[in-house]
Structure formats: C-alpha cells, structure tokens
C-alpha cells in the first residue's frame, strides 16, 4: 500500500499533466507549423537583406519574391480598404491590390532593412482559432545592451498553407495602422480609390530610393 499510493498519485499526476497536451495535440501541432513557418522564412528574409554579395537590384528582387510567397497581400490589401472595399468599383479594387503589393514590398523592405544585423528568436504562439495564430518572437540586437524587441507575426492557415497576414512591433499592428491611414486618406478624397492608388505608386517609387 505504501508503495502503490505514491505510484497511483504519480500516475494520476502524469495523466492529468498529459491530458491537456493530448487534447491540444492538433492545435499545438498547427501552432508549431506557424512557428516553424515564421522561424524559417524571417531568417531567410533577414539573410537576403544582410547579404553584401547581392547588388541592390538582386536584393530587392529576391526579397520581393520571398515576401510575395509568404504574405497574403490580397487579403491585407482588402482589409486596409476598410468600408471602401464594399463601395469601390471592382476594377479599382483590383488596381488597388496591385498598387498595394508594390507599396507593401517597398515598405516592408524599408522596415526590415533596419534589422539586418539582428537575430530573431521564436518564443511561442497563441491560437485565435483553428486557422489563425499569433507567433511571438524576440528581435535581439547582439551589439546592443537594450532589451530585445517583441515582434509578433499573425499567420493564417485557412488556405491550406501558412501565410503571413500581419506583423506587430512592440504591440503595434501594421495592418491596423495602414487601414486607419488609407481610410482617413479616402475620407479626405471622397472615397476615390484611384487617388489612393496614385499616391501609393508614388510612395513605392520614393521608398525604393535611398533616404535623403
């Protein structure tokens, strides 16, 4: 009896500990897929941006190819149009998606270029629903005594493969910020999506030039 009691308790404890793991198995696995997706691809992106052997054009092209394979630009673009997505002519929406793709590529390249010498460490993930995950990472600068920055990536898996739909730096989500800007701009321009397209195209060209 003396022996069996601790064993029984241990067995119960082991079962109780294992139960949530067993129940959370598929979700945890999907979370791991999202984590692995972020881990692999963000390192690839940072490697391209810090590769000094590449010319400016090669670096831009390689980064763009990688980014467009990872990011669901169409979904983000439609989200950032806010309520104007429903009222704009379909051909304007399609033209906007194209302009947004060029703008987003230039803007993301500009943001990530600042972090080329830093390393990214995946620290975990949170499930919003079965196909929506927030992957938490820490951006560590090996040459600085500052605390690492928290960078979160939102990954959707509803299309069969993981895609990136948003990124947050220290809790600030980029798509939310873009949506507020675009909606404000459209509000000032009578909801004319073509004006926004022209402005985005101009910004994409300027972002491709070195800062003055």
């Amino acid at each position, binding site marked *: 009896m003396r022996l069996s009691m601790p064993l029984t308790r241990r067995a119960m404890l082991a079962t109780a500990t294992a139960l949530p793991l067993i129940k959370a198995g598929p979700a945890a696995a999907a979370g791991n897929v999202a984590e692995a997706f972020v881990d692999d691809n963000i390192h690839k992106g940072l490697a391209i941006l810090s590769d000094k052997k590449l010319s400016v054009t090669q670096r831009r092209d390689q980064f763009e190819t990688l980014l467009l394979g990872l990011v669901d630009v169409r979904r*983000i673009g439609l989200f950032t149009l806010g309520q104007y997505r429903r009222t704009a002519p379909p051909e304007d929406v399609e033209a906007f998606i194209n302009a947004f793709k060029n703008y987003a590529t230039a803007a993301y390249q500009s943001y990530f270029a600042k972090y080329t010498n830093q390393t990214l460490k995946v620290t975990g993930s949170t499930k919003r629903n079965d196909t929506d995950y927030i992957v938490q990472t820490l951006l560590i600068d090996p040459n600085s005594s500052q605390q690492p920055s928290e960078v979160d990536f939102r990954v959707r898996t509803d299309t069969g493969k993981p895609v990136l739909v948003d990124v947050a730096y220290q809790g600030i989500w980029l798509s939310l910020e873009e949506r507020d*800007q675009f909606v404000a701009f459209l509000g000032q321009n009578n909801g004319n999506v073509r004006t926004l397209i022209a402005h985005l195209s101009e910004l994409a060209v300027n972002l491709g030039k070195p800062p003055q």
Partner: protein
Amino acid sequence: MRWRQGLLFGLWGLVLAGCATTPPSPEAANDPYEQINRDTLRRNAKVDKYVVLPTVRLYLQMVPEDGRRGVHNFLGNLSLPTIFVNDMLQGELSRAGKSMWRLVINSTVGIAGIWDPASKIGIPGHGEDFGQTLAVWGVKEGPYLILPIFGPSNPRDATGLLVDAAIDPTNQIHFKHHLWWAAGREYFTLLDLKSQTYQTVQGIQRSSVDYYSSLRNFYRQYRNEQIGNGRNQPQDLPDF
C-alpha cells in the same frame, strides 16, 4: 500651487473624457477636433524642424551611444518613484516591488541610475503613468488630442501627465536652482525621447499615406499595449 492648478485642468480633462462618446468603428477615430489637431501637428513639426531636430542631430553626433544610454538610464531612474506609485495604484504589487528594487539597486550600485545593473540581474524596467492608472480604473481615453510640444494625447493621458508631475518627488523638493533643474530635466527627457525615436519617426513619415492618421493609430495601439502591460488578448484583433 501650480500643481493644484494642473489638477483642476486635469479634472476638466476627465470631464471632457467622460462626455466623449464611443466611436462607431475604430476608423471613425473618435477625433472631433481633427482640424485643430492637424494644425497643432503642423506647428509641432515646425518646432521639431527648426529647434528640436537640429539639437537631436547634434546630440547623436557629439554624444557616443554609451553616453546617451547613461542619460536615458539616469532619467529613467528619476521616474521610478512615479512608476512605483502608479504600480501601487493599479494593484500591480509584483511590478511595484520590481520598481522599488530597481530604484534601490540602480541608485546605489548603478551610481545615481547612470548604469542599469538591475536589468542585468533580471529586473528589467517597465513604464507606468497616471494615464495608464486612470485607464485601469475604467476611465475612457476621450477624444484624440495633439498637445503643443508633447504631441499625441487625449484628456485622460493629459491628466496623467499633470498628476505624474504633481506626485514626482523631485518636484516637491524646492531648492535654489529648482527651476533650472526642472527645465533641464524636461529638455533632456525630450532630447532622449526624440533621439531614440528619430529614425523610426523618419521612416513612418517617409512611408505614410497620411502621417497624421498614422501617428494617431500608432499612439492608440502603443497606449493600449502599455495599459495591458503586454497582456492584450489576441481575440481583440479584427478578423480578416
């Protein structure tokens, strides 16, 4: 006496915040004073361009990174009593304990807070202010405001600024050159903040379709993150 006037102004701000209605959607922005705010942002940008940024560039060129870090640490150490009080007012006892330990360790071993040994032994810094305390107590932010010099705010956070100044122990000690000390501290706080955010702000300005609404969104998301102490729920994010 001055801080009492500040408190009165702050109470007016709270009333204003209480009167503000909930926005119908996030993009509606709860920004009834947008035109005035845009004008203030333009004036602030001129002050930045002609007064603040030239000093910031000089500061970045003349003072090495270690020196700037020392200034940042020193100013952060001066804020710790205020952070401690706000930790307590929010019922965050564990964080209050950390603030107290940081103050003790950094003021002594860290030589008046110039160095930050507390972080190295696992007590990293965190921010708290009375604007966040009011938010934890359930006070709504109220309409978006751009304050002269200070920039993005709202009645709740503007009230917080005044209350924080009132409870800061260094503002309670009156000595011969107190005014110079207070002015110098404010100036270096601004310089420290601007030098840390200089590149980021330049990047946002360069890539923004509408810098004003970009700044408004950044400010709101940043404050929500601060109020939640990084514990905001991903369930609150919109579906898309």
